[in-house]
């Protein structure tokens, strides 16, 4: 008998991964959570049937959602991470000696518990003494924050489901308010390739542009996400992602990475023409 996990990337395209066994299956108040073991990608986590991360390629996503902002901000001490219950973002953040405090806000405690138990590769650093975990709606948590954080990382699920509130104008506006005067917000920005994803990507971009003076987009390739071509948003009150980037300073930190490096930092902001056009379409401020 063969067991396969399949995710429809569009109504006409699907990605299938051969599965050895299902390790965990549960339903929280918000979503269904599964962990499976596969020969090609190792263990992987799905939420409501959608691929969240695999042991094989999660490093690309987690390095790219963390290091560009951390390399641009001269000294990010207070960090807010929204979503990210799998711990991958925190694992990258704790590499920075000047980080003093990380608030991690996830609505679903079960994700954190399941990852701690079955995905230690990402959840390894959730017990770091600098990390405070808050089980709460991200939108609610951030509403009460003002001028508090140097960097906010929004590691959300897709905008259909529990993550929907993290793609809204009210959320981005509240992030702006929660950041210090030189703060940076990075968000999971969906994919530009398939039309449905591209629309979500454009909507998110439009709302961020309306909320932040500097709003750029960068890319990475993540084999298990739809189309493999993924974007991140870099929204900032003061620092430009390239002009204010000090490559030598970051290299001096000696942080070991497998995907991110300082040349790739600059290159990742160079986007294909069709993506630039999609972004420009929604950038015109009325």
């Amino acid at each position, binding site marked *: 008998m063969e067991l396969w996990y399949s995710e429809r990337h569009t109504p006409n395209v699907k990605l299938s991964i051969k599965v050895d066994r299902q390790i965990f299956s549960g339903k929280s108040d918000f979503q269904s959570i599964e962990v499976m073991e596969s020969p090609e990608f190792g263990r992987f986590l799905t939420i409501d049937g959608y691929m969240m991360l695999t042991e094989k390629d999660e490093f690309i996503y987690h390095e790219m959602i963390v290091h560009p902002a951390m390399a641009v901000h001269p000294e990010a001490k207070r960090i807010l991470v929204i979503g990210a219950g799998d711990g991958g973002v925190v694992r990258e953040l704790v590499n920075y000696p000047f980080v003093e405090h990380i608030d991690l806000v996830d609505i679903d405690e079960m994700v954190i518990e399941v990852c701690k138990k079955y995905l230690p590769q990402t959840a390894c650093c959730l017990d770091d003494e600098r990390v405070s975990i808050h089980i709460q709606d991200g939108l609610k948590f*951030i509403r009460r924050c003002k001028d508090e954080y140097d960097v906010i990382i929004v590691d959300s699920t897709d905008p259909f489901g529990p993550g929907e509130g993290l793609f*809204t104008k*009210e959320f981005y*506006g*509240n992030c702006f*308010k929660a950041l210090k005067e030189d703060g940076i917000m990075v968000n999971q920005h969906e994919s530009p390739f398939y039309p449905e994803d591209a629309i979500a990507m454009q909507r998110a971009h439009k709302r961020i542009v309306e909320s932040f003076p500097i709003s750029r987009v960068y890319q990475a390739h993540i084999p298990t996400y739809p189309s493999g071509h993924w974007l991140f948003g870099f929204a900032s009150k003061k620092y430009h992602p390239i002009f204010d980037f000090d490559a030598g300073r970051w290299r001096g930190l000696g942080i070991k990475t497998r995907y991110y490096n300082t040349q790739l930092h600059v290159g990742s902001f160079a986007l294909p023409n069709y993506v630039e056009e999609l972004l420009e379409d929604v950038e015109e401020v009325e």
Partner: protein
Amino acid sequence: MGELSQNRAPIAEALEQFRRMRVVPFDVPGHKRGRGNRELTEFLGERCMSLDVNSMKPLDNLTHPTTVIREAEELAAEAFGAGYAFFMVAGTTSCVQTMILATCQKGDKIILPRNVHRSAINALILCGAVPIYVNPAMNHELGISLGMSIENVERAITENPDAKAIFVNNPTYYGICSNLKAITELAHRYGMKVLVDEAHGTHFYFGNQLPISAMAAGADMASVSMHKSGGSLTQSSFLLTGKNINKDAVRQIINLTQTTSGSYLLLASLDLSRKRLALDGERIFDKVNEMAQYARNEINDIGRYYAYSRELINNDTIFDYDKTKLSINTLNIGLAGIEVYDILRDEYDIQIEFGDIGNILAYISVGDSYKDIERLVGALSEIARRYGRDKAGMMRHEYISPRVAVTPQKAFYADKQPLPIAESSGRISGEFVMSYPPGIPILAPGEEITPEIIEYINYAKEKGCFLTGTQDLKVETIRVLK
């Protein structure tokens, strides 16, 4: 058929049975279970189209119910504690009109608060009854009109002992209730019928610790918008009658204006929604209460907004408050309610029920989730941060006491001429002017136009209220009596 109980839904069950019989349709509707209109069927779904059928023996007839519709109406009456419950397919508007047409004839007086829905005054145009307005009290801080005080009701009754009926909102759009029980007892002492507009009070019949319902208060008729808090399809409502009302006479009035092709989609939605509320209403409205209270606390926590509730109760003009309503005063952030309403939709993709000069109302129901409430609260907090301004120059809505020069019917049918609104002061209006929602007239046919009213109309326009009622769709001219 088993015994009738609240877990039955006779109309829905009959439709299901009928569907299984696979009867060949050589009757209307002409779409023939959707097969004749593929585009519409794809749009609405096959199941929906297959249930859109005509009255026939196994499905009863709304104008003269003897089988399944009658059973469904009796079950609804039981659930609402009414003498009888009519299934209505032309909205609560038709319920309100039936209540008035069933109790008043030409020249009869009816006592009512001026902050009624336009449907009540429309009924006066149809039947020629004379309105005796009781001024609702005002809360000047919030800029909302309240309930009727017992003292004012008593004065209206003793000054007009020949009035046939008194009309009460239970609650108002904002959630405010008058002392319905005392008003009912008073009116009955003088032989007047008590008609209650419960468009916003369906849940009073099922929830815990909610204001008293019309039927429990002993009222004679009540119009219940099942499609608002009750969960049925838009346009479906119940008309409830008290135990002393001749229901067959009321049905004759309903049949004056109601369609003879009542939609079975609407009827089935009433039937199933009644079942759901009867079986599970208490839990449902406990949850709505809890969500509304949560939202209120969070919104008040933002500051400057005021989401009000039962602390307003004063045992008279705010005798009770419907805490499932999320009414929010916006004046202290320097924005009119209608402006917040527009910003929420245009900038944040959030549609709320209405905004007026100083308030917004977000409708909370069992279909909501905390996740969505967080969005509403988050957006309101952003609006205060980004758009908030000094509150100077904000107009507060003042109740403008109307001067009724002629009856609504006489004004409606009189010879009229159009005039620019700005030049209409001193004339008698032949038309309505109102913001929609809430659909409460600023001016009704037969009322004198005053400079205050013109100022109010201009301000409402400037703030972006959706004004309706005049023949002139731009609401720049008004037809006045010659």
